[in-house]
């Protein structure tokens, strides 16, 4: 609450005119720090803070397990996605398209962010885990593509390439034939 | 008694079959004489040699057979090879046997393709079976010749052709289609009958529940809201 009443505060310095008036908003001037309250007992402002990351072998196993969970995540999501796609239906309308779009974009984004996700986990099986993660995401993309195929959006038939076909050139030319006599 | 009637029936059928076959022969067997010309198109000579006879027993049923009067020999093979090397044509001339003024029908095929396929030829005869042909119920109108291979031919390859390998087919005119008014009228009548029979016999609630239920819900919600807001 910084409602200022000019009669209560001095306009030049901002300090309260009355002795009991408290400026809760903060003055913001550097010299104030020297007038501040003394530090509490036992507090040394020059102390350095250092922390130690020492993991016990148990926590190491936990980390690996967590990494594996992350790597297998996409594969676990495949049945769920299957069911979701089945529910969204086979027609071309806003909901199925949204579902397919989302299911295509999510694995793509995850693929690009692989390194970021696995940055916190380092270990001997990192590469294997990354590979599994990659495969899982590819499987999800494959699922989305299968849905596209059943919706009829992929150009797999000859009729899809018909518009690009050049007309056949003529080899023999015939003239005449009409009656003039 | 039964045996006698059975025998009579079988005999009768046989007789009628015979008559039917005789009827076909009476239709007029058409014999077409085929002559060919193996000289190049730039030469002036018109040397037509008779080479085959085609017997058309019934054009409508497609019963046709070919017999070759001139056997294939090495000289012919060589002239065909010469024609195919120069990209020239193998020409045929056909006419009906027995007609006073032979009305010739000419056709041709690419010599290279014929040679490459080993003289495998397909002759398509155009036979007119409509009654305008005058006295003859079948008359030769046209012919076309092609080799069923159709692939790129390399004229340098020399082959040894043992003999003719001909297939003959007959094409007759197709009667013109007539606008199909019968099925259309049938369809219209069926649709009219369905419309006449089809009446909505359901009860009032069964017909209009989709409108009544939301209205009731709305009423309840607004009424409940009022009560709740009190």
């Amino acid at each position, binding site marked *: 609450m910084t409602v200022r009443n000019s009669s209560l505060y001095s306009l030049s310095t901002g300090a309260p005119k009355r002795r009991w008036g408290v400026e809760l908003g903060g003055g913001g001037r550097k010299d104030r720090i020297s007038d501040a309250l003394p530090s509490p007992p036992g507090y040394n402002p020059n102390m350095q803070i250092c922390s130690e990351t020492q993991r016990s072998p148990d926590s190491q196993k936990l980390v690996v397990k967590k990494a594996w969970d992350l790597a297998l995540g996409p594969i676990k999501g495949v049945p769920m996605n299957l069911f979701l796609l089945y529910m969204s239906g086979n027609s071309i309308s806003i909901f199925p398209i949204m579902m397919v779009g989302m299911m295509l974009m999510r694995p793509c984004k995850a693929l690009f962010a692989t390194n970021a996700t696995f940055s916190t986990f380092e270990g001997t099986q990192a590469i294997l885990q990354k590979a599994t993660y990659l495969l899982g995401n590819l499987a999800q993309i494959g699922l989305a593509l299968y849905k596209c195929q059943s919706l009829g959006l992929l150009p797999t038939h000859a009729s899809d390439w018909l518009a690009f076909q050049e007309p*056949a050139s003529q080899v023999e030319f015939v003239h005449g034939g009409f009656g003039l006599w | 008694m039964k045996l006698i009637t059975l025998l009579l029936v079988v005999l009768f059928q046989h007789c009628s079959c015979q008559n039917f076959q005789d009827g076909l022969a009476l239709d007029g067997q058409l014999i077409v004489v085929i002559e060919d010309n193996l000289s190049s198109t730039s030469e002036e000579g018109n040397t037509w040699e008779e080479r085959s006879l085609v017997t058309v027993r019934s054009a409508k049923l497609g019963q046709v057979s070919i017999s070759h009067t001139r056997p294939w020999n090495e000289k012919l093979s060589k002239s065909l090879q010469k024609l195919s090397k120069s990209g020239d044509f193998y020409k045929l001339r056909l006419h009906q046997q027995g007609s006073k003024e032979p009305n*010739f029908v000419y056709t041709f095929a690419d010599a290279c393709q014929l040679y490459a396929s080993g003289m495998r030829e397909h002759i398509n005869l155009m036979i007119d079976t409509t009654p305008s042909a005058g006295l003859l119920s079948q008359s030769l109108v046209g012919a076309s010749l092609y080799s069923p291979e159709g692939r790129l031919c390399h004229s340098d390859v020399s082959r040894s052709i043992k003999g003719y390998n001909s297939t003959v087919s007959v094409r007759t005119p197709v009667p*013109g289609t007539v606008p199909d008014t019968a099925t259309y009228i049938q369809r219209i009548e069926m649709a009219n009958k369905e419309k006449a029979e089809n009446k909505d016999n359901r009860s009032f609630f069964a017909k209009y529940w989709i409108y009544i239920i939301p209205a009731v819900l709305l009423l309840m919600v607004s009424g409940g809201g009022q009560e709740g807001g009190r």
Partner: protein
Amino acid sequence: MEKLLLALLILVSIALPSSSLHEDQIGKFDWIQRGIGSVHLAQFDESGSADGGPARRLVVATQHNVLAVLNTKNGEIMWRHVLPIGATGTIESLNVQEGKAVIVSDNPPLLRSFDVLSGTLIKEVPLKLHYKPDSLYGKRLVQHDSSSVTVAHLTSNTAEITRFSNLKTGAQEWQHSISQPWISSESQCGLTEVSLTCVDASLGLVLSLPFSRLGKTTGKEPQFISTSLESIGLSVAVTSDDDADCKFRSIPITLQNVHGSPRHLLITSGESSSVLQVGSDGSVTPVKEAGASSGAVSVVDVTQADDAVIYRALHHKQAIRISGFSLALGTELVSRSLQFSVGAEAAVRMLVVQQYQRRGDGEVAVRALVVMHDDSVHLVASPGVLWLREEALASVLAVEAVDLPIPASSVSMHDHMAQRAGVLHSLVHRVMLQGSELLSWLAELLEDSLSPSHSSPDSPPALYRDEFNIHKLLIIATASGKIFGMDNLSGALVWSEYLPSIQPLPSDKLLLFLQRSVAHFPHPPQMVLVAMHKDSCRGVVHTFNPLTGEPTGKGLEFLPYRISQASMLAQNDQQFIKPLLVVDTSLGVHAFPSGTELSVVLPHKDVLYIATRNSTHITGHSLRSSTKESLKLTPLWSQHFPPGTIEGVYTKRPGDKVHSAGRVMADRSVLYKYTNPNLAVVVARGLDHINENLLGVYLVDLVSGAVVDWISHSRVSGPVHVIHSENWVVYTYYHDRNRRHELHSLELFEGPSQANATAFSSLAGAQRPPLVERQAYILPFGVQASAHTITEKSITTKCLLLALDTGGIAQVARWLVDPRRPMSGGGPREEGLVQYMPEVHLPSTDIISYNQTLPRVSGIYSAPTGLESTSIVFVYGLDLFFSRVFPSKMFDMLKDDFDYVLIAGALLGLVAAALITRKLAQRKALYHQWK
């Protein structure tokens, strides 16, 4: 409240978009010009003009069986009656008296009387002849005046003459039959009031039979009085024997009636002519006029009075002078002469003169209706030509649309670039072109504003291409030998050229080919016309520039042979000219222009094939064996086409492209089309053994001679109109047994796979015959002429344009007559196919000629424009009609009543409102912050 709701509902239902023309759009995209035909009888109607002033109306009868009345002030048609084609409608004589136009027409002859003012039929009297006149064999001559009608019928060796004196009942006065060995249906004879006079070129005599001799029943044949041609002062023109078997030569000596006098005849032999006066005793005396022997004399008009005057039209340098001579004295009456200027080649065919008393000073003034050999009708008075009607446009035989050139300043826009230039290069090129065009446009703007240009009123504004290439020049070739260049948007004639020495080819054909279009800038466009010589059966080739009509190159060339086939090649030479290949009757091949034989024809001789035909056979030839010295045809195939005779061979239009290679089925597979560019539809008609009509339709590949399909219709007659395009064929006919007009539709497919997708070869393709789908539909009306719409890329659906018997032009979408329309409604449906219905429904919104009636249509021509959605249609026959059609509605252009003002105003208003509101909102937020 309810009434308001009802009104709103009605308003909304009316406001639905309609696919046809709105009433205020009539005349915006189309125009119509009415014609009357080639005039052969005319008379001024003197009843309307009180106190002897000039006649206000002119009654004309034409060879196209049209009786019309023209307004003499401006030449407009006041009313016209279009009588049926053929002998039933031929108008044989015309007599105008007391406001009634009386004609004798029909077979057996009918005397019809029409009111000149309103055109209503007042009376119709049958003239009963004692014999049954067979119009096929014989010539009929009619002479009639206010009191009697004489009819003479000439057949081989016999002449039947009948006179009717009671015009109210049609009762005969007398009738006689004369047989002479020299009478035939081709005899040149003329009927006068008192005699039947004939001229025979082989005998060299003028033979006259006075009617006074017929009354005597002496038992002997009444004798003709003969006068030799030399005594009249004429000689028979000598014709060459080369073309003795040519049926189309012009007749050496002609005899015709003279307008205005029932006793005079005009005899013409070559360049000289003479007027004969026929006496009651059968004597034939030539009329002497002073100074009439020199110059080209055409026709004559004589007025009946004591001071009878004979008028002759004399061709004098670049002008025609109509001089009057006193019949009795032979002196020229200088006060009664008219003069007007014409082109160099014009010659007068018919002259009708009216003498009237000028209102001011009571002097006798003269007005003349002049009909020239090129069918143009002029009304000439003393100041000159009052009006001119080009009636050659009623017998159009060939039309071709030519693109207009782009202005020279923007020629750089279309300069040629290499085919495969690469994307970056094309972009740079395009940007440079657009930049230079912008600069030139700015310069033009500056120029215009600094010095406003004064357009010279004399020279017509040069025609340039418009934005969408809809403005084209129509080159029209007519049967009289006149070629016109017509502006297609306004119907005005840009240029006209008369070639007096040509006539149409035997089957009423004139061939027009565009050898070079305007697309090749420094070279002018070139067009060629193929016709026949008037005096022989030999061919004529005329090369000209379609934009100006002037002859280019060799101009008019008379060929020493008869033309059997003529067509234009698809390949061009270095100067972008496509050669015209002409095959003569002895199978010699010639190329026009002459240099192209070596440059274009010989390099392509292996792929060029030519088909020739006679009435029953078609023969295919190849140019393979041609050498540098001569082009030679070798026959490869020949086939007979029963029944009867071949009526027509219809190929596809050369510029017609196929956009998609196949049709998409319901299961997403493709059914490939069979598009054979060498396919032709051959139609043959004849009789079968029980004398019923038989129609045979063949689909023939003209290169290999293979018959792809052969359909035989029995009991089918009527004119067969064929439309052949892409991979489908539609033809219409009349079914005798079902007594209705039917339409048969064929479509050709290769199947689910293509043999060769890159090149179509007829020789290799013979082994895979296509699948043919057939279906027939019922048409509610008969068809006079047919064509199909054509666009540049063929993406829009093709529509069939049918000129109906009722006088309208119908636009029928092709998918309505698709042979694959399913019988049953269920099942997987292919896109674009509706369920089969046997009748082709023609709603009135599909008639592109809205409420106009076109009584006699002889052909329809369609051409593409620069827009893919639009095609232009030109209908010719007795009348000319031009319109634009949008087969798939107008999808690439804004509609013409697009409200630019409203939308721009609304846009600007909204933008301004948004800015102002933003400003206000910012101010309000600031104010609130300060509080």
